């Protein structure tokens, strides 16, 4: 006979279907994108694209922006195509010997250093493909970030001092599609009046569209004012000036610091740190005084740390490789068979971890009913 045993049920962690903090996804994607900037070797680049595709497929939700990855992917393909096209057309003097085909050449004076048309070599085309691929990879990373953590949600987390800028971005994001819808409506109405084509017609139609959007902005401003916008930010002018000065000096310090780092001056790191500190102090000071509160902020828990961390890991592996064996990341000649940078590739594969570490996206009730 003893005291009845207390049944303890402990479920650890924050791993249940929920929306991950958008900042975690953006950090992860930025890690991958930063890794992509270090190499033109197609092996790691293609691997990064594959990783983004896999994670997006595994963890995206049913939101309207979740499909934006496909859009960015198509954009990436276009980037490569444009790169190859211009490289072929405008390749400067001979870039190798393996001539694929010869285009009719338009002679230009030598002083321009440009050649229009002429021989197109395998080397030139491959170089273009590799550089295009690098850019395309960065596009895919941004697409993945956008599909997984909406840019609009991310804007909720701008520091309080930058709140005005954040809200301006949100309104711009809302206005752009409305403007497009207005334009389509007015244009189709314009056809009713036997509207002419060309610049004159455009000028004529621009009037109602612009007037409409102006009216809408005024309505929005009135609505925001009526709902208390800007009510709690009425602080003293001196405090406002201090904040502005801190942020500006901080930004300047950051800029010079980055310049110092890039040009390997000794003042780089200390200035960078001082600038960052000043900037953060300014933002903190400004944010402290706005009496705004935040509705339902997303938690920053273990899954967020893991997801962001995996992105950092990808970037770290790539930067280490870039430092120690740069030959693996930049091909000596474009026609070489690309080498496999093992460490960097293992690092990139770490970027796959969010596909299991991130909590799955919750199914919305409407979708659930359809499924059930």
């Amino acid at each position, binding site marked *: 006979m003893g005291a009845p045993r207390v049944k303890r049920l402990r479920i650890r962690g924050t791993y249940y279907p929920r929306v991950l903090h958008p900042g975690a996804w953006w950090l992860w994607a930025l890690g991958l994108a930063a890794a992509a900037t270090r190499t033109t070797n197609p092996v790691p680049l293609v691997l990064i694209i594959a990783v983004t595709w896999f994670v997006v497929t595994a963890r995206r939700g049913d939101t309207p922006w979740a499909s934006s990855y496909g859009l960015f992917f198509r954009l990436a393909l276009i980037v490569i195509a444009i790169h190859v096209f211009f490289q072929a057309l405008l390749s400067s003097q001979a870039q190798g010997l393996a001539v694929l085909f010869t285009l009719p050449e338009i002679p230009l004076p030598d002083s321009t250093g440009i050649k229009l048309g002429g021989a197109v070599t395998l080397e030139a085309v491959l170089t273009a493909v590799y550089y295009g691929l690098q850019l395309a990879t960065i596009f895919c990373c941004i697409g993945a970030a956008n599909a997984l953590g909406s840019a609009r949600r991310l804007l909720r987390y701008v520091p309080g001092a930058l709140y005005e800028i954040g*809200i301006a971005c949100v309104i711009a994001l809302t206005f752009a599609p409305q403007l497009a819808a207005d334009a389509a409506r007015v244009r189709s109405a314009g056809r009713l009046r036997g509207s002419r084509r060309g610049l004159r017609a455009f000028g004529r139609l621009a009037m109602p569209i612009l007037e409409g959007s102006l009216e809408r902005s005024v309505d929005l401003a*009135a609505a925001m004012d*009526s709902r*208390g916008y800007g009510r709690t930010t009425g602080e003293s002018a001196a405090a406002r000036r201090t904040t502005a000065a801190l942020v500006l000096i901080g930004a300047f310090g950051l800029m010079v610091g980055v310049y110092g780092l890039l040009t390997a001056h000794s003042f780089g790191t200390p200035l960078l740190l001082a600038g960052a500190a000043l900037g953060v102090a300014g933002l903190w000071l400004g944010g402290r005084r706005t009496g*705004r*509160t935040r*509705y339902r902020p997303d938690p920053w828990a273990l899954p967020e740390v893991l997801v962001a961390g995996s992105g950092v890991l990808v970037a770290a592996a790539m930067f280490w490789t870039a430092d120690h064996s740069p030959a693996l990341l930049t091909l000596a000649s474009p026609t070489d068979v690309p080498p496999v940078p093992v460490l960097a590739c293992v690092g990139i594969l770490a970027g796959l971890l969010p596909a299991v570490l991130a909590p799955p996206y919750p199914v919305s009730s*409407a979708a659930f009913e359809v499924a059930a």
Partner: protein
Amino acid sequence: MIRFHDVSVTYDGATTPVLAGVNLEVPEGELVLVMGSTGSGKSTLLRTINGLVPHFSGGTLRGKVEVDGRDTRTHRPRDLADVVGFVGQDPVAGFVTDNVEDELAYAMESLGVRAPVMRKRVEETLDLLGLADLRGRPLAHLSGGQQQRVAIGSVLTAHPRILVLDEPTSALDPLAAEDVLATLQRLVHDLGLTVVLAEHRLERVVQHADRIVWLPGAGAAPVDGVPAEVLAGTPIAPPVVELGRTAGWSPLPLTVRDARRRAGELRDRLAGAEPPAHRAATVGDPVASCRDLVAGYARRPVLRGLTLEVRAGEVVALMGRNGAGKSTLLKTVVGIHKPTSGRVDVAAAGLVPQVPSDILYAASVAAECASADRDAGAAPGTTRALLERLAPGVPDEQHPRDLSEGQKLTLALAVVLAARPKLLLLDEPTRGLDYTAKRRLVSILRELADDGHGIVLATHDVELVAEVASRVVVLADGEVVADGSAPDVVVSSPAFAPQVAKVMAPQPWLTARDVADALSVVEQRAPASVVETTPEER
């Protein structure tokens, strides 16, 4: 709760005040309806309550407006946000965020409400307004009625004691409007909120109002009193009140139910008279015919095999809920939307779009008319002459944007008519029109039909249909579900029946004027001859 002390408002550059001599007191828990024609200062009056006039709009406010003890001269709209919730006419224009939950929280975030309180209030508001199922939805994916409810919710979360609404149901179809008004009714009864609203569609709101403030316009002092008393003397009134005046009932009935309880006697008096047929006097050749028309999006046809013929002299009303295919049909007939399959044969057609200013581009009325003449290849002066016939006295130098809604519509109509269409299409023509402008539109449409135009109007406005339509076509899911004369189609339908028809059923009377005409005939003891069409006001 709200006190106006001798308030007058003059906008910058204006010589006469929009509002003058306003002395009002609105006690707590009342639902006040502000009525008046366009330009009578309704919006201005509403906007003085939360200080948008004069802080936001500019202009001069004389006198004093006191809201819950706060003077609007010293309190800006943002300082009143926790007392007055203001909802504008177009809910979409006031949305700051992109989903329902964030929109509800926005005002509280601005006011610095603590996070746990915020969370609780959002949940309460979601339940109160029946929005819980929509909480995570993007605002753009909601229907008009749902958007209006979110707009109301987004100001309610700040727990205001007064709710001000500027034409909350003007842009909504009848069912969505009922949805919003039922919500308001609940707020007044359950939460004791004070509500002030302006509305053109009196037939929808009069029954909910405790008090009416009527602005006669032109700076005259407002008339204020209980609905039945105020409506006895106003030139604008909902059909059920007009019927009450015709029948000589006192006090005037405000709801269909009130009127119906007294209508037995009126029905007896009219027993011998035959209601007018609401048919076109003369019907000419077909001006448009659609056969097996399929149109819409690639995988989602909006019109599914629709067949319809319109003849000269007919006024066809297209009815049906939002998304039933009304606008698509009009666009397909006029040729700006390509059908997927089927045949459309149309004589020259002209369409007046839902937003008339979409086809008005010039900087003055005169320039607009001149350019319409050029576009249509008509003789110079044609459009101006048409406009003069439709709406005399629109000043030449005025900017089309500054015209009243009714004048804008008439100008757009004149521009379209300059091209001499045989078929005239109108998409939701009564949106934002007051009763006077609507009456004007009815007589214009009758005139055009008599001239041999075929007219098709897509509309939610059942009272307009009752006045003017010679044929009603009801669309549902891209198909014609009813097609016949107005009395045949409309009288038996719960959603589309006009107020007078609801009162007079089973006798098929559609408008108060029909009843008045019949009464005068009956009372003169003239033989019960049929009045073919009602006389026109000219």
